């Protein structure tokens, strides 16, 4: 296992974050078992105080988890490629992690999305004097908790699998797939026009749904926004990696998402994938706000405001992604008069 300071920082942030989330999870379990908002007995009064403490612990835990995930992205994209022989970007690092890295990342980002939605519930809960969403919020935290445990466990596993003595062939991981047409994953066979068409159509639908949900917050508009904000990132990421990345790298074809994080490409990956993930979270956030607002009259107005804000973020982030992802392609077209593939 590599004892690099950034990996130790990730480990420390993960351990403290997990400790806080587990402690908050324990309280959340107690809330689900014993909460009785009408009672004023000792257990209920103590639980009300503990629920506030648990909320603070979970907020700090989620913050540490998000921080350690950002450090992990920086480590995979900038630090570890310099240590692993043959690695030039995150693709090489993932190769060295022998498959465990992808699972760790997937679990971490799913958990971050769930923790973000929990945080939304918690914020809405705190807008009302008596916290009507305390039980719902506790449920939300318990749903996110296994993801945090597994995500951190898989990160440790992935990092422990890193071997500095064994070289990897970073680009071969991309280009070897073209050696034998039969072994290509299905998305490599999808034509560019389909990726770009899907990216544009779902993007336009997402923006339209976002504007509708912002102007007229309601269950239908927010549901539509949530659906498109969950579909669109896949179409957008596919179009970026399969088609538009060529214009960022200025080569005919290099379908690598991780090279976008390198300094020679302005570290644009942080901005693009950040916008994509933010937009992905904003849609469900708009829907969740509307649903809980309709169910609990005490928080209806703050929930409506939060839903509108989430809709605005979904639109803003998707527009920023579209501009950031397609700008090099448009510049290329203006300069050379043709698209990169001819």
């Amino acid at each position, binding site marked *: 296992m590599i004892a690099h300071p950034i990996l130790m920082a990730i480990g420390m942030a993960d351990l403290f974050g997990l400790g806080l989330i587990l402690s908050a999870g324990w309280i959340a379990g107690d809330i689900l078992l014993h909460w009785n908002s009408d009672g004023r*007995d*000792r257990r209920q*009064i103590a639980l009300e105080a503990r629920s506030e403490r648990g909320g603070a612990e979970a907020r700090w835990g989620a913050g540490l988890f998000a921080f350690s995930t950002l450090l992990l992205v920086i480590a995979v994209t900038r630090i570890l490629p310099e240590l692993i022989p043959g690695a030039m970007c995150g693709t090489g690092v993932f190769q060295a992690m022998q498959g465990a890295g992808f699972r760790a990342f997937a679990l971490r980002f799913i958990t971050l999305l769930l923790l973000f939605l929990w945080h939304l519930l918690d914020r809405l809960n705190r807008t009302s004097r008596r916290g009507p969403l305390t039980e719902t919020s506790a449920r939300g935290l318990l749903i996110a908790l296994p993801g945090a445990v597994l995500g951190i466990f898989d990160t440790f596993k992935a990092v422990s699998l890193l071997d500095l003595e064994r070289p990897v062939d970073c680009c071969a991981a991309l280009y070897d797939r073209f050696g034998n047409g039969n072994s290509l994953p299905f998305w490599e066979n999808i034509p560019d026009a389909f990726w770009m068409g899907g990216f544009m159509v779902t993007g336009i639908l997402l923006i339209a749904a976002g504007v509708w949900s912002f102007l007229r917050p309601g269950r239908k508009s927010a549901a539509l926004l949530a659906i498109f904000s969950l579909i669109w990132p896949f179409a957008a990421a596919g179009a970026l990696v399969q088609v538009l990345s060529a214009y960022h790298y200025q080569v005919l074809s290099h379908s690598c998402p991780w090279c976008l994080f390198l300094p020679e490409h302005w570290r644009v990956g942080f901005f693009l994938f950040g916008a994509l993930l933010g937009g992905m979270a904003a849609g469900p956030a708009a829907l969740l706000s509307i649903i809980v607002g309709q169910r609990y009259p005490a928080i209806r107005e703050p929930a409506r405001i939060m839903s509108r804000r989430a809709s605005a973020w979904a639109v803003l982030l998707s527009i920023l992604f579209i501009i950031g992802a397609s700008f090099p392609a448009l510049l290329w077209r203006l300069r050379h008069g043709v698209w990169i593939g001819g």
Partner: protein
Amino acid sequence: MSGGIFCRDLELVRRGSSGQERTIFTDVNADFPAGNITLITGPAGSGKSSLLYILAGLIRPTRGEVLDGEEAVSRWLTPHRDLWRKGVGIVFQHFQLFAELTAEKNVMIPLLPKKWPYRRIRNRANEALERLSAGHLSQMPVHFLSGGERQRVAVARALAADPAILLADEPTAHQDPEGMKIVMDVFAEARDRARVVVIAAHDPRIAGIADRYYRFIDGRLLHDRGPESQG
């Protein structure tokens, strides 16, 4: 404006570091209506100060609730309870003043959240000090003041924001007869402006001014008839 504060089934249990529990008081049911001065008496350690802290929202009871009108304020989430506390003025038994700051600055502190212009805050602080006959002390650091003077500054601080609820813990313990009269007049004025006034005290001189009386006996708060019951 508060219509009054009401305690329902309040209990306070302290837990020591060894896990040992001590019940300070239990089953406290009491009403503190607006436009009345309520006096709470009882032996040292009976829980008078703790009850005031609970009424002020500074600590949570272990059971029961404190209502402001219909609202169980003791069970509100902390940020909401903190907002409510802006309407509560409290005179602490040990004053809790900033010793290095002047009397005027100490009295200005509870006015800062109101975001008034500085001049208005300063004027209001000096008015409060004047009402307590402590205007001449306004520019003196608190650590230069005597116990009685500090106590009047503490009362001025509690009154400066014109709170709907005024809680005072032994507010005359350091006062001579003249200071005592000044402090009591200020509480009477608050009562006349329909404020909730609750005083916890040993001082028998206060009994004459109060409208309602409670006494702590063996961890229970009992309604008392006041001076007449003591002969």
